[in-house]
């Protein structure tokens, strides 16, 4: 991780792209019997949790200027885990969890 940036593990959850802080990733496991299914175990930095995803796309480094706050209108309409920011790059948009 560089100063003023964050390295993200980008995954496709089947509907959207999610980014997780690489430092928080404990392990990525392929789910047996489910082609294209992965389980990302997190918790190196915070409380342990796991996220199921369809595909692991790799990592991307986001600089501070590529990070935007989550619009309030969206934050109020999300159930479950809420993203802490939105990554905005030329390649796409990632919700950061």
């Amino acid at each position: 991780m560089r100063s003023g940036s964050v390295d993200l593990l980008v995954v496709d959850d089947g509907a959207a792209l999610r980014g997780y802080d690489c430092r928080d990733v404990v392990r990525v496991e392929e789910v047996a019997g489910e082609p294209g299914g992965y389980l990302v175990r997190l918790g190196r930095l915070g409380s342990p949790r796991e996220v199921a995803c369809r595909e692991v796309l790799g990592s991307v480094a986001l600089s501070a200027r590529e990070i935007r706050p989550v619009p309030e209108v969206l934050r109020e309409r999300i159930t479950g885990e809420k993203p802490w920011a939105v990554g905005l790059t030329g390649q796409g948009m990632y919700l950061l969890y």
Partner: protein
Amino acid sequence: MRNGAANTVFEVIGMVSTSGISPLDEARGELLREASIDAEASGREKAQEESGPARSLLVFFLGSEGFAVDLVHVRKVLRPSRIACVSGAAPEVLGLMNCQGEVLCVLDLRRILSPGKETAQPAATEGKFIVVVQHGGKEAGFLVDEVRDVAELPASSVHPVLDSIDPSRASLFEGTVACGGRFVGLLSPSACLNP
């Protein structure tokens, strides 16, 4: 004789006009014109006081149904570009769009207005418009089918929400306005932005 009587009066007061109109009449006429202008202006002010200041409304359509929102709350109107989906979001959330370097949450106004008529497929965005509305520190883009025009209407032309509107939906409206020969629902930006 009427003319003779008038001439007599002019002679008495010593003011005779070569054009046949006395300076007194000219002065009175001038006074009457001024009074008429004042009355007209006063009438306009009174009418404005009674009807309230004019409101500029952006009129748009969802299918054949017309809606309006006060232009004060409209930040811009865009064509949809790539919208990124969001997992776990409410059905009316179409996703996020890069709006000139800012992240814009795009909502499906059709789903907000008809929450019971949710379809499995998200709304297609091709050929449509996004009306970006701002109110109370919140901002969102609402997907609409067609943006028609801006209507200038006196505030008095905003009527209560029609009784025929479903009560659950009625809270989304400020009222009803007659616009271009049809009634359109005037949306409440606050109600539409807050879940």
